[in-house]
């Protein structure tokens, strides 16, 4: 746990990176800092070695199976990364004139069209920088629509109780009031509850389909009709589109606006937290309100364009352009055929894994339903019987060299794992995961303390979250400087 600051020594430097100092005599003294910032002073080798080593303390798709539900941790093609890394793209200034940006604009336009085709939406704007920003755009568009019609009382956004946290948070950020709608025991939205919830205050409903329970909302058309009849609009959270990519178009289900998570469905790498991209698509009703800039094709070439009633820009420039390019490369490599197979094989893997886990003695939350690219296991019984929580179970899985599934989400199901294998994993990998789960299950019974104190094989043992929040330590200070402790001598 040596930090880069522990490696630093005064006046050490990576000289090849340090240009000569130039005069700044013309600058007013009052604008300058008195003391240099306390950045680390290290050699280039130290920096390279330190961060290379740190990287080794991560699990990642490139090194581990990563069945994190709702996150679609599929293979991130290296070719897409390279395509986006061409110097002409990387060195392109965001404000370069259109005349010297035709290649870039052509790529964005092509991606807009692909996303239109795959969602059934008539217009797509690429600028939102993540799913949550796409949601923000969508809800803001819905509000603008109602406002434009003078329908000013619509301030409520409905979300199913299984919704991802960004849905209610987004609605709040848009100044709306959130109203949760119950989900029935079969995992579908409770139609009666929905009917009771809609009304003249309903701005719209936000939902995913398949839902965060990994279930396809079977009565989605009825849901849409209820909301529409009440005067509301429907927002599709596309984070789960991978399950039905190429098989079902959100527009056909009755949605008016949606976002896609390109860093999920379109395989752009998640980068340890981001970046992503959350393009928004809209049907006829909402298209005029889309955020800008978008790209249009004219006889004179491609140009930037703002929709007529645009909600305006959400980023300084063109969103996460580099992620858009990666997604385009991925889409081109898949083609429409490959796109359809994504949903098919993601679903096959999920159902196979669910069945095998069920056979292995796990409780599937919705055993009578098809798994849609992900599914829920509940460990409530294990907790009751062995005192082993889902979190304990998750930590122990890490010792088996697989990343844990999503835990405690959706909130609806107690002690749950949301498990999403994705289509890019092989049967063998899934089988190995079943073996690991089965072993931990056995351990939970025979040696629960082993599971409760897991992980045992990682750089850190179980970390104390509570302490972290109670005694906030958010930055290194010289007092932390650690003298190198004796090297490991385990034998």
């Amino acid at each position, binding site marked *: 746990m040596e930090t880069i600051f522990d490696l630093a020594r005064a006046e*050490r*430097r990576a000289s090849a*990176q*340090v240009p000569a100092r*130039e005069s700044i005599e013309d600058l007013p003294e009052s604008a300058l*800092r*008195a003391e240099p*910032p306390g950045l*680390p002073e*290290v050699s280039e080798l130290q920096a390279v070695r330190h*961060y*290379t080593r*740190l990287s080794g303390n*991560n699990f*990642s*798709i*490139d090194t581990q199976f990563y069945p994190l539900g709702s996150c679609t941790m599929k293979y991130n093609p290296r*070719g897409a990364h390279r395509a986006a890394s*061409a110097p*002409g793209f990387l060195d392109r200034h*965001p*404000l370069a004139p259109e*005349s*010297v940006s035709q290649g870039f604009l052509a790529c964005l336009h092509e991606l807009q069209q692909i996303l239109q*085709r795959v969602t059934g939406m008539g217009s797509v704007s690429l600028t939102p920088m993540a799913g*949550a920003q796409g949601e923000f755009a969508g809800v803001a568009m819905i*509000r603008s629509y109602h406002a434009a019609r003078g329908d000013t009382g619509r301030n409520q956004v409905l979300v199913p109780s299984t919704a*991802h*946290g960004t849905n209610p*948070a*987004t609605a709040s*950020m848009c100044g709306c009031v959130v109203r949760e709608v119950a989900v029935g025991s079969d995992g579908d939205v409770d139609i009666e509850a929905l009917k009771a919830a809609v009304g003249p205050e309903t701005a719209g409903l936000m939902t995913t389909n398949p839902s965060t329970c990994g279930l396809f909302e079977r009565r989605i*058309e009825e849901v849409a009709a209820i909301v529409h009849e009440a005067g509301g609009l429907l927002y599709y959270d596309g984070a789960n589109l991978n399950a039905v990519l190429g098989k079902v178009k959100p527009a056909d289900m009755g949605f008016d606006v949606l976002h896609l998570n390109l860093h999920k469905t379109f395989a752009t790498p*998640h980068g*340890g*937290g*981001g*970046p992503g991209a959350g393009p928004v698509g809209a049907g006829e009703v909402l298209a005029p309100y889309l955020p800008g800039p978008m790209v249009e094709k004219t006889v004179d070439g491609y140009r930037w364009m703002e929709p007529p009633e645009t909600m305006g820009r959400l*980023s*300084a*420039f063109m969103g*996460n352009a*580099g992620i858009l*390019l990666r997604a385009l490369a991925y889409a*081109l490599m898949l*083609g429409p055929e*490959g796109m*359809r*197979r994504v949903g*098919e*094989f993601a679903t096959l893997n999920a159902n196979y894994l669910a*069945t095998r886990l069920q056979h292995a003695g796990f409780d599937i939350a919705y055993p009578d339903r*098809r798994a849609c690219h992900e599914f829920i296991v509940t460990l409530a019984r294990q907790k009751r019987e062995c005192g082993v929580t889902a979190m304990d179970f998750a930590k122990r899985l890490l010792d088996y060299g697989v990343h*844990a599934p999503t835990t405690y989400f959706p909130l609806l199901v107690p002690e749950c794992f949301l498990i999403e294998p994705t*289509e890019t994993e092989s049967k063998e990998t899934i089988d190995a995961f079943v073996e690991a789960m089965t072993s931990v299950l056995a351990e939970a019974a025979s040696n629960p303390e082993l599971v409760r104190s897991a992980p045992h094989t990682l750089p*850190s043992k179980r970390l104390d*979250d509570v302490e972290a929040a109670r*005694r*906030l330590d958010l*930055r290194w200070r010289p007092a932390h400087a650690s003298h190198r402790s004796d090297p490991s001598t385990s034998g």
Partner: protein
Amino acid sequence: MPFIPHTKADVASMLAVVGAADIDELFDEIPANLRARDSGDGDAAGLTEMETLRRMAERARADETGPCFLGAGAYDHHIPSAVWDIAGRGEFMTAYTPYQAEASQGTLQLVYEFQTMMSELTGMDVCNASVYDGGSGLAESILMAVRAGERRRTGGRAGSRPRAGGSRRVVLAGAVNPLYAAAARNIVGQQGIEISQLPHGENGLADPGLLKDLAEPPAAVVVQQPNFFGLLEDVDAVTDQARECGALTIGCVNPLTLGLLKAPADWGEGGADIACGDGQPLGIPMASGGPSFGFICTRQSLVRQLPGRIVGRTRDLDGKPGFTLTLQAREQHIRRAKATSNICTNQGLLVTAATIYLSLLGPEGLRNVASACHARTRALVAALDLPRRFDSPYFHECVLRLDRPAQPVVEALAARGILGGLALGPYFSDLADCLLVCATEKRTARDIRQFSDSLDDAVRKAA
């Protein structure tokens, strides 16, 4: 089937386990009328990687230009090769948000180091693990300031989110990046928060006096240093004046310039309250503006209003130090409708790059790069031999005045392979004859000569 490993035998045995006749059967819960309506258009196979790269590389190549003198929020700096060689490692690039701390110590420790470096640069107590970009960073800073004001009025009941109480207005003092301002307006406007612009003076600078004259105290005053015109604001006066009217100060800064310029925490008597900006200058390619990252640094007292991930140092079961996401109770996945922000996915990989960049540069490197940028810009201004529009001291960027509308000149320069700066007309109608130019440490004397020759040529042509 690109990226799908299944053999026919795999499919058969998996279907047998599931008890389905074919894959299509797995979709039987989906109403038939919704399914596969368009399999017609959808049977084309994909391109190979080779074909994809060819198509995209040809387009990329078409956009290559000569030397770039555009800044305005995105800067063409040298990026040490090690930065992306390391940041691009699969273990950083293909990991998710570090929810499982024990399996994510690499990312977590790195973010903790990043928080430290950004805190050092801004002089602030804490920094978050990024927001999307400079524009959303400004928006989230404004939301923070408004929430903080509300809390102050309501006695600090966190999470109560009263609509009354603090001011729901924020002022921009002088020339703040208009693209940031637009994004911020579109974002905070949804909550009825108003952003008003205090005009810059004839010298191009914010006028702290205008703050005195405000009828009602705003929640915050935003000042950018150097400002959008590249001018050095009197941030001390602005900060002091903001405090006087009971407003927080939000400093919008280019982190690279903080190698030389006064840290926001040291502005005026009490320092700025929030420092935000875009991290692109720290080892991130311009890449058409994204991905880059926004950052927000603030005082310890405001940490619970800070949006986004925050990493804390803690201990493991053995008492060994380690890192974990902390203060998650602010975030959407816990707090849902009451979260400080809806942000979830952030710009982690760019934070990784910036952290490596800052490690390689160190205090001296950053200072020298900043000084080199300024020196090159000075040389550029001298070479172009155009009048400056504002005569206050500038740093790294400068507004020059042409004797004609700037936009056609920019176009003519582009045709000659030069990105010759930003025509300010679209942003400031009274500056239609002005060009915002910038040179980084990468620009050589030859580049500058090429610009100045092309400018002569372009102006002649445009005349």
